[in-house]
């Protein structure tokens, strides 16, 4: 546990607490502008999708660290299969299972 790590996690904790307590604490002092409330509902799809991209297109999975590189990166294909699984089942566990299974499969097919 480095000092930098502790600072980042502690600050992230403070930011989270500030947002969670924003109104429970601040209800006597301010109200939210309407444009802000309207924008809030688009935060989850926009931010989560932006967040997925580096996880899918950047970096190397443990498979590659352990057994060496392959020509086609298995991550984008695995993510596409996972998305398909979600649209078919609407459930998280099958989505994760399909994604991980196709990650292994696409890697294994190339060695």
């Amino acid at each position, binding site marked *: 546990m480095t000092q930098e790590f502790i600072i980042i996690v502690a600050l992230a904790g403070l930011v989270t607490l500030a947002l*969670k307590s924003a109104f*429970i604490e601040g*209800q006597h002092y301010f109200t939210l502008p309407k444009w802000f409330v309207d924008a809030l509902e688009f935060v989850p799809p926009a931010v*989560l*999708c932006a*967040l997925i991209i580096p996880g899918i*297109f950047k970096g190397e*999975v443990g498979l590659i660290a352990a057994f060496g590189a392959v020509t086609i990166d298995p991550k984008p294909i695995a993510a596409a299969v996972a998305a398909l699984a*979600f649209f078919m089942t609407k459930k998280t566990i099958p989505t994760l299972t399909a994604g991980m299974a196709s990650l292994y499969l696409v890697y294994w097919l190339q060695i």
Partner: protein
Amino acid sequence: MLPLLPGIIPFGLIAGFTPVSFGYTWLDSWMGSLLMFAGASQLAAYQLMNEDASIWVILLTVAAINLRYVLYSASIAPHLADANRTTRLLAGYGLTDQIYAVCHRDYPIHNWNLNERIAYYTGGTLLLWGLWQACTVVGAFVGQVIPVFWSLEFMIPLTFLALALNTLKTRAHRVAAITGAIVSFAGLNLPYNLGLILGGLAGILAGVLFRRVNQ
């Protein structure tokens, strides 16, 4: 509350073992659960720390993911307005999707006094908190014995994928999601993970504009 508990077990385990797959210890992994107590932002924080993102990008992303709590907080606030400061702060720390859902549903239909409302909130939150902490610690210990080649860190983007696809209720939400993804992809090689921040902002803006034009 009880029917909502099983759903957090796999997510708690993932939140526990993915930081370990990046090389953090079980204690490092648990710190996030203790200090943040907000699953999706925990995963994002560890992923970004692993990518050496700047502290501002990490905090901004955590804030963005947790913005929904402002809405929850606003909806719960009137029911806890007369509680003392310590209780209010603890209630803030313990705020989750699940406790919001049950309180939002049950406070208006019961004629509870303040103490009953606090007891209801505390009971549900303690259950959820205990289970969440237990799951992250168990997940972190399991993660320490799982070999690297299992590539469990890939479950972070997959989890976000499932969470994101679950939010696509209207066309405006889909526009926000697709814009966020495209801009983030275009900005993949920008320094400090700026592509991620720009993608999020562009997506929100696109969603708002799309709704405004189509109303």
